[in-house]
């Protein structure tokens, strides 16, 4: 075998092996363990809010959507929801909606929670866990930033500061 040819073959084989190893490590450790990947279209859903109004995600095309999964028992959620509430009217005018999905708690608990913190953004309840499954949400809170084309821009797990939330809302302005 010619020297040049040998080098090409060896390089090619090593590259293939490196790609296989790299992919395995990447897929296991550097991707979110959610069904929805960054860059993919956010799964459509339809849920009812506390006032009985239906919200369908695809109706929000053209606007940015800050989709927050939460529960009343989750302390980080308790901390960040008032911040979301502060920014909601500011960014609603600029075409970014906040939609909070409660993970199937009794309507009474959710309503009391919303009253206690004076929350004004729509809160829908995922009674059957269908949306939770579709987004494969693990820990709470988890937030999906969805742009005007319905694509997931970023997935945030864990608590956010007021400034974090502003930055995230800013990033999905249409």
């Amino acid at each position: 075998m010619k020297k040049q040819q040998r080098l090409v073959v060896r390089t090619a084989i090593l590259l293939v092996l490196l790609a296989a190893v790299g992919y395995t490590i990447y897929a296991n450790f550097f991707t979110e363990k959610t069904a929805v990947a960054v860059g993919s279209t956010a799964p459509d859903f339809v849920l009812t809010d506390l006032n009985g109004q239906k919200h369908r995600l695809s109706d929000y095309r053209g606007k940015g959507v800050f989709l927050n999964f939460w529960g009343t028992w989750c302390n980080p959620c308790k901390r960040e929801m008032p911040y979301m509430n502060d920014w909601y009217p500011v960014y609603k005018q600029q075409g970014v909606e906040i939609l909070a999905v409660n993970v199937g708690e009794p309507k009474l608990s959710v309503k009391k929670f919303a009253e206690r913190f004076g929350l004004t953004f729509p809160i829908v309840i995922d009674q059957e866990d269908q949306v939770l499954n579709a987004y494969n949400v693990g820990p709470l809170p988890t937030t999906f930033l969805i742009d005007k084309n319905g694509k997931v821009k970023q997935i945030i797990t864990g608590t956010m500061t007021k400034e974090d939330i502003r930055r995230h809302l800013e990033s999905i302005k249409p």
Partner: protein
Amino acid sequence: MEQVKCECGHVNPHGTAFCESCGKPLQDVGEKRLLDMRYEGSARRSQTYKRTIIDQIWAFFSSVKVGVALIVITLIASAIGTIFPQQMYIPPNADPAEYYEKQYGLAGKLYYELGFNNLYGSWWYILLIALIGVSLVICSLDRVVPLYRALKRQGVKRHPHFLERQRLFGVSRVNDPDDAIATLKERLAKQRYHVREEDGHLLAEKGRFSRWGPYVNHIGLIIFLIGAMLRSVPGMYIDRAMWIPEGETKEIPGTNGRYFLKSEQFIFETYQKGKENEAFNAAIDRVGNGMIAKNYQTNVVLYKRVGPVIAGAEPKLKKVKEYAIRVNEPLKFDGYALYQVDFRLGEPKAMSFQLTDKRSGASFGTVHIDLYNPKEEYDLGRGYRVKLLSYFPDFEFDEDGNPSTKSRVPNNPAFVFKMYAPDRPKGETSFVAIQQTIEPFGDNKYKMAFAGLETRNVSGLTVRRDFTLWILGIGGAIFMIGLIQGMYWNHRRVWVQRVNGELWIAAHTNKNWFGLKNELRRLLDGTGLTMPADRLEEGKKARQGGQAHGTA
């Protein structure tokens, strides 16, 4: 790179130990009497070219020593991973940082800090396995190609130096060499040797395919590793948990909203004395009547969603089938399997309270509260009503001492009621939890008296889909084929050559020399030819100083 031309005219790659064609040693073999026949003396390429960085990486992975080191490191790490339980097996509510230290002391703390608590999913463990895979591929390629080449190009006529350096070698003087060779040729063919003749010399060979066994085996292993790797490709492998209470219909996670499951009933049975075969009575007595689990079963109905899938929308369902899921008897559909893995008995579903006058004990009606969806207000008529101010399904006091809930599961429900009566139009507030009542604003006239608890069983199921199984199966099968190929066949060769009027016979096998010697004895029986001597054994005997009797 220069090549080496043998005196027989064959051109060998640099690094070849002995000529591919005639077998003449090309490197200085010195006093060594026997040739090292591994890989047919071919030049493993990694040992000869080490110029570029690519060549150096290649040479590193081509080393069997490196491969063995990787395997040993992985073995040791795997063994350490079994000393204490892995994180997935410790109680789910325990904080691993504390748990290991509390349970196992300093060793446990170290175990956790070094990351052995989640060993088999850690990046470095996966990297080790991956490096073994790389080593396997390169080691195999680096050996199988030159070996194939050497075996393909081997000549019939061999250099005398090659023959006399074989382990089995003998010299015979015969009157009629033509006749002896003809006889041997016939006998070898009968023993199913593939015989080649050239200028009156013989090369008989059989079972060469056995030499490919290890490489076939490695291909199987590599396919197996690819299968394991594919598990991390989305959609190839699904392993999800599902809790479903009796009477409810829920979406099956991992099916993208296409399948729903209804649990009709969860059944837990134990072995009862008197109901079983008498032979079991002793065993039942020993453990205790009704203590040995007999059956865990969930009776379910599988539904498929009709029409478009929109999460959250009321699904239109079509019944697919009814099934009883038992341990090891999963419900299978569309590549999915639902396994019975867990259960919770008697989970609270609804609670009843009676609005009662504390002094007289008179009751003014019953409030029935669905713990998954309580109402805000319950009207009992005649001016009596109860408002639910707060509800805590899994009650606890938080850090600030305020009542709150730990989860959404009603494990420990607590309520704040406001009770209205004709003589209490402003209402009385009462905090009610299991076994306790607090009246925050002084003494009340009325109370919510506990009147009953409705429970149901909850089944824990695992949703599994594995599209990599068949790849793992094929890999495993090829692995076994390679193993059998290499283990149960031997690559045997016999050379018969005329050298200076003598008949030289040499033989080689890759394993089972005992079998080869027996075969040679049968071949040479009655021909008057000398049976080739086993020179390795002779050498041993010579070193042992003639004390060769006794153990064989």
